[in-house]
């Protein structure tokens, strides 16, 4: 072993494809990976079947309790200004926040990966143009763009009551807007990895035997950036949850499907902080902090394990 290896700074071979179990074991061996995974597991279980734990989502109609009651034996987390049980809302909010986060992450990563691989692999003017656009999205305040885009797209698609993946159209618009505005850093990371892969021998071999660009990108580049994609997706998830929360907080959420951000918006606009009703915003707030923290912990642990450039930085 060289000194670099002894210090833990040299690459050690881990690959997502070569054993999910091995990766999971390595992840759980790290304290941050373990803590993050435990938190995530709890929230994923809660959001898989919230009605099993707290019954169906309460609405203004089904609410039974008094308004803004502090936590008690009947309502562990207290109630909101409509008399709904905060525990019920928080658990259902987990599902809504996580599903929106997941869908937004999928779109973000998909756009980022396609742009990154195409820019890196094809190169030339296409690369220059794509990277200009990427830089644009990287630098500008994308949140403000999202503020403008969301109502515009909502008015364009109309107020149809259709649901996609059990999510109302209003929130699907948010998902799409987050996807459109957040892919730039993924694209940059994937592009730089693609650039180095393009120089490697196996791509040349593929080209010699007459493989087309599309085939090489799908069959040779993509499997080799999957490590980066996984680590990046987990970190993107944290960002997506935060962005959704923030968009909902400024009034772009859907009161019929309250995410955590929407609950916080309701807490603020009903004056909960001024009334001392801490129980209104602490449960959804804690949910956001824990989930974002957990994704960040797992994401950076995965990044350490999987990203060739970052391995062993800590």
């Amino acid at each position: 072993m060289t000194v670099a290896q002894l210090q833990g700074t040299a690459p050690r071979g881990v690959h997502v494809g070569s054993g999910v179990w091995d990766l999971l074991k390595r992840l759980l061996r790290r304290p941050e990976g373990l803590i993050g995974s435990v938190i995530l597991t709890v929230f994923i279980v809660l959001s898989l079947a919230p009605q099993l734990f707290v019954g169906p989502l309460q609405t203004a109609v089904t609410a039974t309790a008094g308004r803004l009651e502090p936590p008690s034996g009947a309502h562990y987390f207290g109630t909101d200004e409509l008399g709904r049980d905060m525990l019920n809302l928080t658990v259902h909010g987990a599902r809504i926040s996580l599903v929106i986060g997941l869908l937004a992450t999928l779109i973000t990563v998909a756009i980022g990966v396609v742009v990154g691989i195409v820019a890196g692999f094809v190169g030339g003017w296409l690369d220059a143009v794509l990277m200009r656009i990427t830089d644009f999205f990287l630098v500008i305040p994308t949140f403000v763009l999202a503020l403008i885009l969301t109502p515009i797209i909502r008015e364009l698609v109309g107020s149809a009551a259709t649901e996609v993946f059990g999510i109302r159209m209003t929130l699907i618009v948010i998902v799409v807007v987050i996807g459109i505005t957040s892919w730039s850093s993924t694209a940059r990371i994937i592009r730089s990895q693609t650039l180095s892969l393009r120089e490697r021998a196996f791509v040349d071999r593929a080209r010699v035997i007459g493989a087309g660009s599309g085939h090489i990108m799908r069959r040779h580049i993509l499997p080799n950036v999957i490590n980066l994609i996984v680590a990046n997706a987990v970190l993107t998830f944290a960002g997506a949850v935060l962005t959704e929360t923030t968009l909902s907080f400024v009034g772009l959420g859907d009161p019929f499907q309250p995410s955590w951000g929407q609950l916080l918006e309701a807490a603020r606009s009903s004056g909960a902080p001024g009334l001392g009703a801490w129980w209104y915003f602490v449960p959804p707030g804690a949910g956001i902090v824990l989930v974002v923290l957990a994704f960040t912990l797992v994401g950076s642990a995965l990044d350490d394990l999987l990203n060739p450039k970052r391995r062993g930085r800590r």
Partner: protein
Amino acid sequence: MTTARSMSAARSAATVPVDSRGRTLPRQADPGQPLLVVENLRTYFSLDGDTVRAVDGVSFTLNQGEALGIAGESGCGKTTTALSLVRLLPSNAKIVEGAIRYFGIDLVQKSDTAIRRYRWREISIVFQGAMNALNPVHRLRDQIAEPLRERLNLKAGAARTKAGELLELVGIPKKRGGAYPHELSGGMRQRAMIAMALACDPAIVIGDEPTTALDVMVQAQILELLERLRRDLGLSLVLITHDLSVIAETCDRILVMYAGRVAEEGLVGEVFRAPRHPYTQKLLAAFPNIQADRRTLDVISGSPPDLRHPPPGCRFAPRCPFAMEVCTEVVPPEVTFDGVRVACHLYPPGSDGVPVTVPPAPIEAGPR
């Protein structure tokens, strides 16, 4: 604090210890003792809960004015040995046993603060690949002047003048001192690094692969420079390299390391003429020389052992063509024949020590 006081006391006292070059030594130094004696050094790393025995019982001596080459494949403990000498180890590494005596002073026992007194003023290091060893945001002149100002308390002007002289000494025009590292070629950077290492007039300069990243012509120039400086300044050198030709050209003695232990040690001429340890023989066969045909290059099959779980006996046994049963069970003792120390069961204590030669692997090996 203590160091500074003891220094001034040492200078003013009548009995200032000085070495053969007339350099002032730390007060506790005994000029009668050898320059550097390393005894049974063990440096272990802890990695993911495992203990890596990177250096595991290494002993050697360096005399004043001598050049010692430490050879071996990468990962056999050469650099860890060198870094141990001035305790520059990463935080997960520790010297668990042994002594490093500099004129009789055991550096292993020094506190973290006290060891600083010995760094650069007594033992300096030229690192490999001088690109990153030089700070990219500072000018050369300032980097060379830094130890002068910080360690020798020179004034800014004097330090700057001295830095210019040092640059000239290693063959860099004084006016290039204003340059940043990235503005220089690899060879120039390595020269600058050497100038830096010489700043405090140390007794020992350790070169850690000082020529590795350079092309052949520049390598030769750097080696020539080191050779000249050693002659002119009376330096003692420890040269760490995997390139045996560098040792053949520059060093008096060679120490071959394998998997954290000494395999063979002796005068360069003696060891190169008649290598005893099978590893030394393989190593010599593995490096090309001008006479030999490239095709005869012998490659040592296999790789060094995992030092978390090293083989119980001789660590080279799994790759050794002569491995006997005893080799896998008993650690070979170090035995000296004609001034050459070798640790191999082929040469047990009391034997005649006549070299047993490894049959060349592919066609014909080309040791000299």
